[in-house]
């Protein structure tokens, strides 16, 4: 069975500062990795995904994430955040031979002016 740990429940950051949201996972099989964003009272929007190949993946809205197999991590980063990035971010994994998503507990990113 897989599990996902998001180490920070809330991350406050000033506008235009860089940010990193941490995600670690555990699984006995190879996995696909995802980051989703959820704005208040809205659904989940896919930010980016890692399936295979290059360990650095780029997503929408200037976000990127790096897959580190040895550390079983998939941290999300953005070099300069905007007020509009304020939302909850979920890291998720899916087994390569299954397809349900297992989510982390989420990290609330609060961007302050």
């Amino acid at each position, binding site marked *: 069975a897989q599990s996902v740990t998001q180490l920070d429940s809330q991350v406050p950051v000033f506008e235009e500062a860089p940010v990193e949201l941490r995600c670690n996972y555990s699984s006995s099989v190879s996995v*696909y990795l995802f980051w*989703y964003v959820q704005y208040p009272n*809205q*659904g*989940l*929007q*896919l930010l980016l*995904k890692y*399936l295979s190949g290059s360990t650095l993946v780029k997503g929408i809205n200037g976000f990127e994430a790096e897959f580190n197999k040895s550390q079983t991590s998939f941290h999300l980063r953005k070099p300069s955040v905007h007020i509009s990035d304020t939302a909850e971010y*979920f890291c998720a994994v*899916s087994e*390569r*031979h*299954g*397809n*349900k*998503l*297992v*989510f*982390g*507990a*989420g990290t609330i990113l609060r961007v302050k002016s």
Partner: protein
Amino acid sequence: AAGVIQSPRHLIKEKRETATLKCYPIPRHDTVYWYQQGPGQDPQFLISFYEKMQSDKGSIPDRFSAQQFSDYHSELNMSSLELGDSALYFCASSLRSVGRLSYEQYFGPGTRLTVT
């Protein structure tokens, strides 16, 4: 582009009542997933369907049932509702390529169920 449609968006029911949530996947998507997100919680997988057959089952209570119809839309039926069933219910859809399992799920806006 067309997205996943869920109806209703909001639903208020009393304890012990029943509720039916509907999900219309993205056109040509053949796989539907249901997730439950309690207040302040992460989404939890309930059940999924591929080509109208149940493909995986998660932490779905026995009081809940679901199915996928010939037009690929899905319905989640919930009976004997309890206060703890109050949550946001998401449907997601994906497309399975021939010979491969799907990996990218597109989520609908969710149905917010409140049980009083």
